[in-house]
């Protein structure tokens, strides 16, 4: 083997080792192994993502790395995290500096951020201890978000109730307004009728007046004779003109009154528009409430929120088994309404041993059922007992034969 080849082999080996050493140097330089440094310790209750070699930064500047993590001797203790920090940053690390575990973005790795201390505090000694601030975990954020959502949901429920009450009040107001407008319409009609009568009377008076004036003009009767002179005639003529003007004014007033009344009844009147707008508002409100109820129903069935709604009692009877429902009834949080009536009050036994409904029992049952009317129509009504054989009377009686008392809820839908 010639020397040129040997030289190439030597170059290959030496060059390769140098290249490898460059890599080692780059890593060591990044970890500040070749710079002077000092050690500090910080204690944390939670060291998620922190391990030996985790970056340490001082106000964002790369400052060193974690060199050791001392596990607390007992539960509740705090982890002691030892860090190696560049010596040239020593003047910025004071006894009041705080170390915190942070994350590089949402997906990045954890690092420890040391906040520079205040000028009044002394420099931390080599091996000294800093206060540690625990990291904010994504799980904690989710828990807080869940709590916030719970509060928002409560607000929504309250808002829904308030909206229902508001729109209920608005409906009543609209009804009252309609009644008021109807009353006004009736009054206006009566006034119009009276005006028409008044107009007829006025026309009669006018006719009579014309007749008298005509007679007087012709010089008929005592008055005519008395008034044949021109002065009196002229005076009477002026009086007739005044009466005619008065009548015309009355006629004009009556027409204006009719126009006003017509305006109140017209399709474009303000009252009609008010009624139409109020009707639209009620329709929109009803649609909004239906959407809200639909959204809430969808949220109740969502797998993420189902547990939350179930905890608050918004369970879905369609998705529950009988056993789950019975378990739910044993929960102290839910107290289903049960009305119990004594069997000897409701039933009586005849001479043949047959059981029939006692006198007044029907009223007692209806009275008991009245307790259920306070709940909305959509509230669940559960039949807890039923019979499948016999006539209607037998089914009714044998629905709960083993009980000495009778449950009104089970009688709600005997089948």
């Amino acid at each position, binding site marked *: *083997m010639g020397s040129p*080849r*040997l030289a*190439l*082999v030597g170059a*290959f*080996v030496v*060059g*390769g*080792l140098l*290249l*490898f050493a*460059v*890599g*080692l140097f*780059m*890593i*060591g*330089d*990044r*970890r500040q192994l070749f710079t002077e440094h000092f050690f500090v310790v910080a204690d944390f209750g939670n060291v998620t993502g922190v*391990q*030996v*070699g985790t970056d340490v930064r001082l106000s964002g500047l790369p400052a060193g790395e974690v060199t050791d993590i001392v596990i607390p001797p007992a539960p509740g203790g705090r982890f002691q995290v030892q860090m190696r920090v560049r010596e040239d940053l020593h003047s910025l690390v004071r006894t009041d500096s705080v170390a915190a575990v942070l994350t590089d*973005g949402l*997906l*990045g*790795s954890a690092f420890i951020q040391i906040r520079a201390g205040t000028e009044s505090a002394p420099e931390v000694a080599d091996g000294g201890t800093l206060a540690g601030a625990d990291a904010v975990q994504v799980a904690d954020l989710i828990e807080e978000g869940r709590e916030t959502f719970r509060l928002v949901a409560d607000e929504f429920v309250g808002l829904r109730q308030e909206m229902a009450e508001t729109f209920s009040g608005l409906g009543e107001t609209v009804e009252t307004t309609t009644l008021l407008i109807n009353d006004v319409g009736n009054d206006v009609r009566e006034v119009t009728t009276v005006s028409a009568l008044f107009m007829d009377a006025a026309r009669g008076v006018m006719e009579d007046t014309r007749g008298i004036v005509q007679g007087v003009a012709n010089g008929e009767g005592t008055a005519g004779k008395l008034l044949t002179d021109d002065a009196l005639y002229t005076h009477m003529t002026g009086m007739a003109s005044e009466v005619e003007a008065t009548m015309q004014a009355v006629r004009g007033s009556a027409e204006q009154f009719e126009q006003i009344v017509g305006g109140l009844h017209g399709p474009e009147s303000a009252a009609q528009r008010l009624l139409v707008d109020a009707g639209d508002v009620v329709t929109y409100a009803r649609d909004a409430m239906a959407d809200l109820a639909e959204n809430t129903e969808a949220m109740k069935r969502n797998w993420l929120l189902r547990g939350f709604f179930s905890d608050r009692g918004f369970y879905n009877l369609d998705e529950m088994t009988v056993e789950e429902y019975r378990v739910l009834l044993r929960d102290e949080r839910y107290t289903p309404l049960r009305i119990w009536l004594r069997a000897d009050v409701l039933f009586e036994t005849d001479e043949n041993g047959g059981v029939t409904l006692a006198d007044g029992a029907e009223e007692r049952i209806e009275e008991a059922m009245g307790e259920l009317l306070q709940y909305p129509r959509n509230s669940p009504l559960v039949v807890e007992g039923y019979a499948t054989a016999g006539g209607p009377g037998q089914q009714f009686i044998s629905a709960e034969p083993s009980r000495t008392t009778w449950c009104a809820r089970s009688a709600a839908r005997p089948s």
Partner: protein
Amino acid sequence: MAPLSSAGYAVAFAARAIREIFLPPYEIKETARQLYEVGWRSLPLIAVAGFAVGIVLSMHTRASLERFGAEALIPAALMLALVRETGPLVVGLLVAGRVGAGFGAELGAMKVTEQIDALEAVAVDSFKFLVVTRTLACMLAMPILTTVMNFTGIIGGWLAESAISGMSFEAYFRSAFSVVGFADYVPGTIKTMVFGYIIAITACYFGVHTRGGTQGVGYSATRSVVTASILLITANVVLVRLIFFLFPETTG
């Protein structure tokens, strides 16, 4: 029984090679010659392959990290991928192809032409002269070739990145080493010595046990490459597990 006895013989063959490495006489000249053949002459292949792998890895890494707005992590991700696994494995497979076939064919030809017997006849330890020197050369060349692969890969990655973002080489180089630790760099490189050992032993074993003339030589070369590649990949699984055990920080 024949497969089992063959496996036992192969294990004894491999163990003997390790033992003989440390026992005199040391065939330094022959080892250097093999180092020239295995290392120096593989350099162009490894450099070009590393360059291409770096470009491809950079493009793939960019496509993935771009979705998260983490383009700044591209050099570090590429370096981690190269140093931990891609570099060592690609170098191992390339050397298994090039050197494994060469060893298998060369030793197979020597066997069928009775050159190995001739060496024995002149009192030369053929095992030490032919097998140990090649094994040692492979074990020495592999870490160096892997280092070359890593650095040419960085250069390739930088070229691909600078064409898109105009990043400087210094910034790219520093960023590449920002997350790589000793536990990533050193074990990943040193484990290629095991790869070199596997490649050399497998090729030498098939070579010195060649039968059937020139047809047998070709057969030995093919079997050397295939077997060495499979052994190398399966051994890598064990080695990675071992590295995780010895250097727990590499699992992060």
